[in-house]
């Protein structure tokens, strides 16, 4: 049976850490995203025609939101579990009456919550620069939560795997950010010349960006059901990997 008090203690402790690092956690990503909106939305976007019937500034909103969601969810969760390993405080977690469920709900729940707060701030900030609408707001919320949870799980795995800060930064910086840039954040893959439009479909981030874009504008380069299915599959894989980590004690217990 899940130990809810322990779960809540982890969740609250992680959010407390978030409050203490509010500049790095909120101001920095909001500032970065705002710069994207100024450069690509307001400055350059004004000179670009509509993409799939959507003004360019509005077109890039879901992609930029996804960029922040992926990197922040991954980083928050990976730091959340890596820091106790680094400081030695992991002993307390390992000796506490908590298993995989409490740890995941606590750490991943907190990381996902931070991402959702950030997503809300970014969407509000975007309103200052571009006009956009959300065609399926409820679906958008569910999808954002799903992506935040999935990549927080990925971050948790990275945090357990990492043996140094360098490795911790490797996946968000060297894999997720480039794939998101190439995943249709700033363009529709229809705009790519052949064969790059086909090759782009091998990039899993394309499905995430387009899934979110569908919830905003009701249209996307790929089917929403494929996007949703792949996101759920990714979430299931991450949960399974974490279950194995806890069962074997990999990189946690000696």
């Amino acid at each position, binding site marked *: 049976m899940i130990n809810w008090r322990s779960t809540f203690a982890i969740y609250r402790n992680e959010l407390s850490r978030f409050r203490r690092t509010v500049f790095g956690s909120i101001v920095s990503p909001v500032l970065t995203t705002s710069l994207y909106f100024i450069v690509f939305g307001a400055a350059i976007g004004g000179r670009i025609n509509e993409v799939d019937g959507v003004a360019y500034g509005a077109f890039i909103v879901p992609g930029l939101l996804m960029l922040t969601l992926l990197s922040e969810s991954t980083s928050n969760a990976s730091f959340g579990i890596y820091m*106790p390993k680094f*400081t*030695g405080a992991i*002993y*307390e977690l390992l000796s506490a*009456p908590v298993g995989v469920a409490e740890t995941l709900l606590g750490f991943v729940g907190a990381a996902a919550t931070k991402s959702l707060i950030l997503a809300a701030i970014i969407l509000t900030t975007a309103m200052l620069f571009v006009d956009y609408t959300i065609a399926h707001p409820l679906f958008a919320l569910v999808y954002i939560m799903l992506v935040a949870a999935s990549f927080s799980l990925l971050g948790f795995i990275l945090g357990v795997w990492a043996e140094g800060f360098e490795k911790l930064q490797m996946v968000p910086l060297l894999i997720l950010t480039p794939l998101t840039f190439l995943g249709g954040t700033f363009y529709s893959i229809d705009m790519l010349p052949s064969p790059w439009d086909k090759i782009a479909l091998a990039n899993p981030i394309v499905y995430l960006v387009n899934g979110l874009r569908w919830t905003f504008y009701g249209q996307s380069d790929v089917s929403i059901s494929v996007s949703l299915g792949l996101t759920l599959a990714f979430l299931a894989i991450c949960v399974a990997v974490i279950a194995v980590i806890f069962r074997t004690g990999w990189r946690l*217990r000696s």
Partner: protein
Amino acid sequence: MEPIPQPILDIRGLTKVYPGGLKALDNVDLEIRKGEIFALLGPNGAGKTTLIGAVCGMVRISSGTINAFGEDLSRHWRSARQRIGLVPQELGFDMFDTVERQVGYSRGLFGRAPDANRIEEVLRSLSLWDKRGEEIRKLSGGMKRRVLIAKALAHDPELLFLDEPTAGVDVELRRDMWRQIGALREQGVTVILTTHYLEEAEEMADRVGVIDKGRLLLVDEKDAMMRRLGRTEAHFALAAQLPELPPVLRDYPVTLSDDGRTLCYRGGDGTGKGKAEVAAVATALVQSGIVFTALDQKESSLEDIFVDLVERQGLAA
């Protein structure tokens, strides 16, 4: 006949082999009684921390069983861990958090409802109340160690592990911690501590276990161990050189030093026999007209017993 109380912790055949082949624990059997202070002594790398880690969930055991509070720890780990506290050897916590919040976090993590009064009680008992709003990184080393103890006590454990609790702290703080551990015993908490300071075990422990190279060499009541393995040692500094051991001393375990200027008595059994024999040796010397100018006598400490045991084990291996 009174029934034998069930041990609070019952370890059977515990073995831990690390990847690479290092056998950190070798078929360890150990019973811990409710309410006692048990000191686990051993040199560096003996397996003390691995043993604690195996009970507390940081180490995956290779074989053996651990029963805590009468239940199999591998199956009932959630309920057991709620009743176990651990003060680790290394300082490990979120240095940027405040003392009070970290101690409150520990209470919640171990499944206990928030209780500001209890947290205040714990912090006051460790002289941390005035520091409750401070970031842990700003505290002195001794205070940080107290925070670790406060975190371990926050959920009111019945079984408390202290892994080298006074390593690196000054003498005054060490004495202070001994008092606190004594207070925990008064409250009925069972304490298992590992230590390098044999004085610590001698001062506080009810029972002592000696571990080396993963094997538990001996477990006994501290007093019984002192009685059984205790020795008296006395050195008589002679006024004049003796060519040989005087015949009146042949019935005693006495030796003459190579330079013929010191008589050394090594004997007794910790029951007072040694002291009586030293007095008899002194009387015999006086009666024989052998003048001695100084007498240096000491009872063997737990440290002597420990060193002797570990050395004997080393020779046997």
